[in-house]
């Protein structure tokens, strides 16, 4: 048997190690603090000029001399697109995870899991360009135009002129983008549910669905919420695909009134207008202000997620967290 011999501990090395690790830990905090400082100082001008109406207003005029900015339509656009994407994406993702962990034959399991992971790694610009040049025409001709001509006059959700570049297309592509993320994490969570739980349910004569409902879901609930929130995080911050697909309306017309109307999100307006905004101008401050709002939204989502997960954890001791 081999024995490990401890050399006499060096107090200096110990100290260096401690300092080094502390610096590494501080790094994360320092980055967050620096981001907040940068965003606030560089957007100060817009808060001084517009005040609360930057949050509630819907004017967006960058023409020198008549400048006026309000981010409300983009805040709404961010929530609406992310919300629709979650509505479409979460059930499909959990279905995929369920199939892969409970029902799929063994040989399919590894292949499909690998493909899902692969999809999660596809850059968003690929989804965006595919959406713009390929998918958009199908969604316009097969979904939007029929819905619009059938219900457009009565249901405001389907009104407007189907164009293919609108809130609906952006949300669907966004859903396609977040599905691999949510599905691959959910699958891992479900696999981590101890098989004793499943076996116990089978012993009681439960069907596959009942096993899932009785054993898997209660055990992995918090983890599934965590996975969905991670997907939401990606949806809220997604930029390139949205910019290509959402139609990029500005001002009052960017308020999401119909699914088939162009909109705008906080990240897409930054991507659109930042490169050409004059340095130090009010326009620049307004765009950085949008960044600050997006940052606050992202932090809030994460805090809410943590809160939800910890609450569920307390009631289901031993549940697996992603």
């Amino acid at each position, binding site marked *: 048997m081999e024995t490990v011999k401890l050399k006499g501990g060096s107090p200096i090395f110990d100290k260096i190690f401690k300092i080094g690790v502390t610096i590494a830990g501080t790094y994360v905090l320092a980055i967050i603090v620096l981001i907040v400082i940068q965003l606030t100082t560089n957007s100060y001008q817009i808060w001084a000029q517009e005040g609360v109406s930057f949050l509630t207003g819907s004017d967006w005029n*960058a023409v020198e001399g008549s400048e006026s900015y309000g981010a409300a339509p983009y805040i709404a656009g961010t929530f609406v697109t992310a919300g629709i994407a979650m509505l479409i994406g979460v059930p499909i993702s959990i279905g995929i995870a369920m199939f892969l962990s409970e029902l799929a034959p063994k040989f399919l399991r590894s292949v499909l899991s690998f493909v899902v992971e692969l999809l999660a790694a596809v850059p968003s610009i690929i989804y965006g360009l595919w959406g713009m040049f390929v998918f958009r025409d199908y969604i316009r001709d097969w979904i939007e135009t029929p819905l619009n001509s059938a219900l457009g006059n009565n249901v405001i959700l389907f009104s407007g002129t189907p164009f293919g*570049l609108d809130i609906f297309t952006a949300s669907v592509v966004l859903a396609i983008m977040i599905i691999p993320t949510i599905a691959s994490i959910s699958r891992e969570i479900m696999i981590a549910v101890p098989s004793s739980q499943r076996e116990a349910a089978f012993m009681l004569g439960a069907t596959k669905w009942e096993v899932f409902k009785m054993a898997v879901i209660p055990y992995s609930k918090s983890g599934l919420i965590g996975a969905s929130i991670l997907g939401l995080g990606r949806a809220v911050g997604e930029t390139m695909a949205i910019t290509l697909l959402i139609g990029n309306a500005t001002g009052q*017309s960017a308020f999401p009134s119909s699914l088939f109307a162009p909109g705008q999100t906080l990240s897409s307006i930054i991507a*659109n207008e930042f*490169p*050409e905004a004059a*340095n130090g*101008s009010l326009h620049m401050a307004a765009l950085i202000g949008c960044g600050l709002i997006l940052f606050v939204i992202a932090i809030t989502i994460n805090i809410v997620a943590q809160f939800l997960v910890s609450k569920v954890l307390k009631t289901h001791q031993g549940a697996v967290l992603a």
Partner: protein
Amino acid sequence: MKKTFLAVAFMLLLTVPSVILYANAQSSQSYTITAGGSTFVFPLMDTWRVQYNNLHSNIKLNYQSIGSGAGIKLLDQKTVDFAASDAPLQPSEQTAAAGTVTIPESIGGITISYNLPGIDKGMKLTGPVIAQIFMGSITMWNDPAIANLNPGMNLPSQKILTAHRSDGSGTTYAFTDYLSKVYPQWKTSVGQGKTVPWPVGTAAPGNAGVANIVKSTPYACGYVELAYAYQNNMSYAFVQNADGNAFVEPTIDSVAADAAAAATSLPAPDGDWSKVSIVNQPGSNSYPISTLTYVFVYKDLSQVSGETSDKAQEVINFLNWIVTDGQKYASTLLYVPLPDAMVKADQNAISEIRFGGSAVPEFGPIATAVLAIAIVSIIAVSAKTGLRLAPRL
């Protein structure tokens, strides 16, 4: 004898590096000119990079197409040799980058492209009609305002879908410049800028984005850079000239005619260019929607970080080349070459660029130092060895 031989060898040893350094400083020293800005001019700039490097293998251009606004930021920080932009410096930008000269280096034309099944290029439009289409006050293709300009054309009774740029853009700047000039109501309700509050329409990033919308959507129309309209085989409108006597097809020649008419009224190289506009110029063959793109350079290049007088000279040589010989590459890429009057103005502007106001020294400083040491050593060694190459000290 051995001593003399050693001394001569030592002398030679010292003069060799100085000669090499001298030669380097003179010609074969390689430089990388750094620049950034406009994405619109990038294809042309990239061609210039390759062609100039073929002529002068020691000069490399590192042009980052990060957008005009970002390019101007780099100019403010004095980290690039020049910046390229689709719009002139605005007053606030002029104070941030004080002491720059403005050099127009290429011309672009903007088409009104449309997608009407069965209708080819050549729909006739006037400025006010275009403005009303993009304002949403003319909504149907068979509106009398359009029909009256195009008797005999079978215009469909369909809604007009307008497409515009979602990103801040020099193309938007020039297009809204034109609409503000020809339709006063546009100026008051929408205005002119790289980003304007569009009352109607769908937006996509880049010329490619707008071109894609128009191409794939029946009854759409949008404003697209000449090169994109040609490359994508789009149908485009003939626009009424400023004289009001003809509807002009957008071509390299008709855009050049418009630019040439504006060439004589440009401000001084270091003057205020913010009001410069070449849209809607007189002349029966002048296509009215066109724009200049610019290069901005500090008059005194010594303030740019990392600049040396030799490198400054190379920057000046490069700029001189792009406004003269480099222009021949413009039309192959569907940019409009500069008219002669503008080339002269540019050469004049480039001649104002200096390095710290002093004449460029012949020798590189290191070469001078090494050579000085060599000469002193030669004198010292020869004095010590008693060699009669130099006067005794």
